[in-house]
């Protein structure tokens, strides 16, 4: 039996991550002011990229800007309003999952419909994945970014690796007797 993994995992380090939370009544105005997605499960590209977490919160991520810079922009835009912008760059680890069987692997861990029509590039979803809270972002071109509490990153990594033992996640499924 040959094992040709139909997916790849890579750790993504150094990304700045900020969570913004506002009062639900103020969510739309904050979203408009900061160009954040207003629609459920929506991710918007940009620097920072912004991802819908709930009707009153977003995750902002950036490769280039520091968390402090992102927060400073929020501070100036939402000055005088109640909001909470927390740097979570360390709290969350990010694992990128890509390859033709990435969706197969994701569907092994959670009940989200992984059909590309139901979860398309440009969308994000928070779910219970293999008993963990996980944010999955379907990027336009680079598979999926998975954001997990850093304490659980090792577990998640091992879990995702172990999924490769299922021939369904391998490039040439083996059907040996």
């Amino acid at each position, binding site marked *: 039996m040959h094992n040709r993994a139909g997916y790849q995992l890579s750790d993504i380090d150094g990304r700045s991550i900020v969570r913004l939370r506002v009062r639900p009544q103020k969510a739309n105005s904050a979203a408009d002011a900061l160009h954040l997605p207003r629609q459920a499960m929506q991710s918007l590209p940009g620097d920072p990229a912004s991802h819908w977490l709930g009707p009153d919160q977003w995750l902002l991520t950036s490769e280039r800007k520091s968390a402090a810079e992102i927060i400073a922009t929020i501070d100036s835009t939402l000055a005088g309003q109640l909001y909470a912008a927390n740097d979570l*760059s360390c709290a969350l680890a990010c694992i990128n999952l890509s390859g033709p069987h990435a969706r197969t692997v994701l*569907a092994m861990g959670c009940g989200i*419909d992984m059909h590309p029509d139901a979860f398309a590039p440009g969308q994000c979803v928070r779910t219970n994945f293999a008993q963990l809270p996980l944010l999955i972002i379907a990027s336009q071109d680079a598979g999926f970014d998975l954001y997990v509490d850093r304490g659980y990153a090792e577990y998640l990594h091992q879990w995702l690796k172990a999924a490769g033992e299922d021939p369904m996640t391998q490039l040439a499924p*083996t059907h040996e007797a």
Partner: protein
Amino acid sequence: MAKRQKNRLAEGGCIDRSKPLAFEFNGRKLQGFAGDTIASALLANGISTVSRSFKYHRPRGVFSAGVEESGGLLTVTSGNGDIPIVRSTLTALAEGKIIRSQNCFPSVNFDLGRSLDFSHRLWSTGFYNKTFKWPHWRWYEATIRRLAGLGKLASGEDNTGYFHHNLHCDVLIVGAGPAGLAAALSAANSGARVVLAEQEHEVGGSLLRQAAEIDGLEPDPWIAATLATLRQSGNVTVMTSSTVCGYYDHNVLTIADRSDAGVKRFWKVRTKQVVLATGAIEQPLVFCNNDRPGIMLAASAMAYVHRYGVRPCASMLVATNNDSAYAAAFSLHDHGVQIPAIVDVRENIAPALVQQADQRGIPIMPGSVIIDTAGFRRLSKARIGRLSKDAQTVLPASRWIRCSGIAMSGGFNPTLHLYSQAGGKLHYNVQLACFLTATCAQQVLVAGAANGRFLLPDALAESVQAGAQAAGNAGFECRPVAISTSVAGSYALQANRISPAGDTHRQWVDWLHDVTVADIEQAAQENFVSVEHMKRYTSAGMSVDQGKTSNLNALTLLAGLTDKPIEEVGTTTFRPQFMPLPMGVIAGQRRADFYQPARLLPAHDWHLAKDAVFEDYGAWRRPEYYAGNGKDRAEAIRAEVLSVRRNAGLFDGSPLGKIEVKGPDAGDFLNRIYVNNIQTLKTGHIRYGLMLNENGIIIDDGVCARLEDELYLLSTTAANADRIGGWLEEWHQCEWPHLELLISPVTSQWAVITIAGPDSRYILQSIDSDIDFSAESLPHMSLSTGVFAGVDARVQRVSFSGEMSFEISVAAKHGQTVIEHLLASSAHLKPVGIEAILVLRTEKGYLHVGADTDGTSNALDVGFAGIVAKKQTDFVGKRSLLRARDQSAERRQLVGIEAVDKHENLQAGAHFVTTDGAAQRSEGMVTSACYSPTLQRIIGLGMLEKGFARKGETVTVFDAGRTFSARITDPVFYDPAGERLHA
């Protein structure tokens, strides 16, 4: 050399004669072909007795060709241990399989357990309830247990890969017989996402076992063409060897998938619509000695010739109450099986059938039934009797007919297990003598034989509509395909399945549990007449096939015995699993390390390198102690404690729950949450607080820091962080949504490094930092922020050890470097694990929620009466503390304790006892205890009735049968004045 397969036909069947497979059965080397099941290969080799029955150890043969199998349940070795109770009729043969009979000793052909059969009258229904009472059941239990059980637990390593998958679709079609395939064609045509699941290793269902013509094609080409169309459509997933086992709420179904060797998958399917095209299961006839090897279901016998190219026996008597067995008889005949007669309960038989039988020279015996069979190990003959006019008795004259097998048909019963699981109700159809669908709670359509359409044209016509309708219901265009068939056929039936003659003790109803007609009669006599009582008393339908071939006959009998219509008797409840499935499949990947996730500290690797011994505390994996230099547990903990008391210790407190609460109403909110007054807390300061539930019970404690005017940071115990976060949200969102505040959990963002001990200030001051660690600018219970060792840090001066102590929070990614930097800076600083911290806090009398308190401890029990009394405003749990019971002085209260004899081994879990008359009574217990290296004796904390008033008293401690004396003390053993804390 493998023997010739004596019952294999020269041609035909979906097997590949060019791929022989060698296997072993009870030590005999045999051969089958690719495409065989174990059962078909055994039959091909002329093996009739394959196992022994559960209770009477009767010889049994292969009984069916499908999921309803009761005889061919065998132990199979396949490089994955010896697996018992394998369904030989559903398991594809593979090279090298070693197959054994089970439930027999010493061998399947000569089984000592058979003596149970000869004394069967002793073991009738309920025998264990009525006997074995004297002198006591325990005298018999072990023997009975050894006799019970089908096969031995699988042994050896389990190398199977078990995996879970989730799937969403619009239409799930269960069963890929002609009905399922037709429904799939229509559903696919609409553009819906379709899943078609079939439990057998190939699709086709009953088409594989019969001659037919669909769209001008024979079965095999039509199936192949249909599969090709479905695969091309792009929106259909066809799954084989995939049994739909459970139908749960909200249209979620589970599939056990065995399609890859060495791998078992469990699919959880969420679907908008379900089409059940699960076919029907042929029901057996009940007559005397109807369980001998060679007796099988007629459609199954037909399956062996058609699908596997195997003659089940050389000559088969066909017995039936309906038309369908004629096709079996003709098929068998046409494939070289001798048919001595067709025994039909009906007087009037369709002329077309009679004519076809005549053409083949097969005699028909109308109005007749089998009344007994004979044969030693294998069947040799059957006795036929003629029914009286009313079919209630058998006329005296009878005759024996020689045969080596019987193909019987009592008609079909739709496979509605999943329908019932889905909340479907069944009703009894008198004409078809079976149960059909009535109404269902969930979104399900039933088509084909499962819906009583036992003729191919009807089944196809209905199914193309059902497939389209399901897609339509799921929001797609309803586009049925057209399928034509020229087969006509007939399915007339007369309801009698049970022979009116013979010894009812020898008429099997449930083959697997050896339940006979006599057992059911007895149950009825004893008034176990509810169908559920009958089931439980006789255990009919409770074995591994869950009554697939016995339930209908059992309740037909019960109806007769109680003079009720079958409809009124009703069925027992159908439950998952439709077919039993290995527990490993259900657990999936959730094994060992993946059973529950472990949460690692930011500096996990560093702890590992320092010889930390880890244990799980809540979700976190934390250093219990550091076992450097071969230290044992106690020794290591002692040294760690002393390093804190004498110099300084470094403790990784990162798991501490951290939640920010921000907003103009944050203070107000927290004041409602904590027992303590938060409104008087000043910016830059910290307060210890207790949280209660509404019943006044302590649920957590921790400190609350006011970082800014409108920003607070709460610390919770590590294990409770997530729970408290959720709890705060619930109060805010559900009870006080008008309060202007935001709750932000930030636990993992920060590594928290605690430096505690008399040297701690000095050590911190030696590190490059702009934070002033002096007692004046950073007194106990205050905080400061700045740059520390080159990174941003917040320092809280709080203590869980009783020493001067600083909690340094830095971004988690810097945790390890800061730890390394600190340790490098001073030889006096030693890492300490969680056990040392627990000793330190016990010495200081600090509460450990969950150890010193449990779900019965309220705030007053731990000395919060003063704080509660002073606080004017309401808080969660306050009202409960006002109940007389909660205020009572009789309650268990927190105390310190030490053994009078200081060498006495005082342990947590011991109880305080008082003597109430003759009996000892617990007055509470030791909740924490440890050897205090500081005080050099064992000390403890406990909860004791009226404890606050009993300081100085000597009490009796009980532990594992021993008692000894102990003294009640103040809980604070160390530095009661707090000089070291405030230093």
